[in-house]
């Protein structure tokens, strides 16, 4: 039972063919990510660190199925989901993008939480959806903003809304791409508490972060270095690992 990458290799496609002229630099080969083995068990928190451009977001996009590896497999609770439709991933894995605005598309905050459910479920289940949405709004302190446009919220509010929207599905695993970037101390505190709760309820979390305030929560730390997913060490055993 885990969200697992096994012997995965992903290479971004070559950019569109460009006419080459004398004096042009040769186009560098596209970025490649390799991961021999990565496992995220339920009720654990794994943190991914690494320099800018080392492939953290690429790794997270592989974990949630947005990118399909050219080699290797993505397994969720033993099922091979490599190349499966995104909706199949979405039922088990929740993903919060590095840029929260990229995953908000409704016209109001409350609609953001309910719109997908309304498209996928029968009408008689809508009141139940509405209740879940209201509960999440209260939990995320967004009740006052319910009629506002998600595009006009502050970055921190967007981040909270994006996470709330993902939790509407109650996924078993969560992948968060730099969830604390741009948050103030109180919001980070709130995020830590929330992640702890989710973890205790049995969710497996993979948190991409540079934030020293989030790292103590994680049981394990994974580092990406120039596309190689390297050491997978318990943070307790080597707390200074991968610190610059």
């Amino acid at each position, binding site marked *: 039972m885990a969200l697992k990458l096994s012997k995965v290799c992903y290479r971004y496609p070559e950019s569109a063919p460009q006419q080459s002229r004398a004096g042009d630099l040769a186009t560098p080969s596209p970025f490649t990510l390799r991961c021999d083995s990565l496992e995220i068990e339920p009720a654990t928190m794994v943190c991914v660190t690494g320099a800018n451009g080392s492939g953290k977001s690429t790794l997270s996009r592989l974990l949630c199925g947005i990118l399909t590896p050219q080699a290797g497999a993505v397994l969720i609770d033993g099922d091979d989901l490599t190349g499966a439709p995104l909706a199949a991933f979405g039922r088990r894995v*929740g993903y919060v993008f590095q840029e929260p605005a*990229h995953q908000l598309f409704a016209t109001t905050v409350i609609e953001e939480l309910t719109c*997908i459910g309304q498209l996928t479920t029968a009408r008689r289940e809508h009141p139940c959806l509405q209740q879940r949405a209201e509960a999440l709004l209260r939990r995320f302190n967004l009740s006052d903003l319910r009629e506002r446009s998600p595009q006009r919220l502050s970055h921190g509010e967007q981040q909270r809304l994006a996470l709330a929207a993902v939790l509407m599905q109650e996924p078993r695993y969560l992948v968060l791409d730099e969830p604390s970037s741009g948050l103030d101390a109180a919001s980070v505190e709130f995020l830590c508490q929330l992640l702890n709760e989710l973890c205790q309820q049995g969710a497996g979390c993979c948190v991409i972060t540079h934030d020293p305030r989030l790292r103590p929560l994680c049981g394990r730390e994974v580092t990406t270095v120039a596309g190689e997913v390297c050491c997978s060490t318990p943070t307790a055993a080597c707390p200074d690992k991968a610190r610059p």
Partner: protein
Amino acid sequence: MKRLLRDARTKMALVTLLTTGAVVIAQLGALALILLLSLVAAGAYGASLPRMLRRWRAILWLLGVVALFQIAFLRTGRALLTLAGVMLVSSDGLRVAGQVSVRYLIIMAAALIMSTSSARDVTQALTRLRLPTTFVFMVIVTVQFIPRFAQLFRDSLAAMQLRGLDFRRISLIKRARAYLYLIFPVIAAALIAAQDLAIAMETRGFGAYKKRSAR
């Protein structure tokens, strides 16, 4: 000759010709011919059509939805399909839907042709044509922003599916509604980006001098 054909200016002239044709011409047959020409030209310039089709699947869908709306709401002309006395499909509706779709497809093919030149080549070509700097800048900005919006569009689409929406499992009407949701963040982001860029340019003194040295 080959170099002349591959010059960004030649492509620009071609693209201008094709898109002008797409906007001016109204006959469906002629439009289809222009589309065919554009696609052949894009193929000749080495653009990969299957890859573009895959990437633009969502946009093509959106085009289909818009066409359906036109067929549904335009009720003039000959009736082609009636149900219990109510006109469902009219000749005008079908014609307009076809026109609009083919026009958009031509514009997409034109973008495909331009995408085979690098942004730098396009900038140089425009500057050499002695066009005003402001205009050149506008074109560059537009060209540079397209990949960003495309990424935003793809991210929103992925986010939607990850939240459990399986496009193949819902009805056509719901699918149309889902695609309409996707336009919204792109437009909002475009407006916000345009505002930010205008301010950033002004703070860096764009337009403060009539003449630029790099000509």
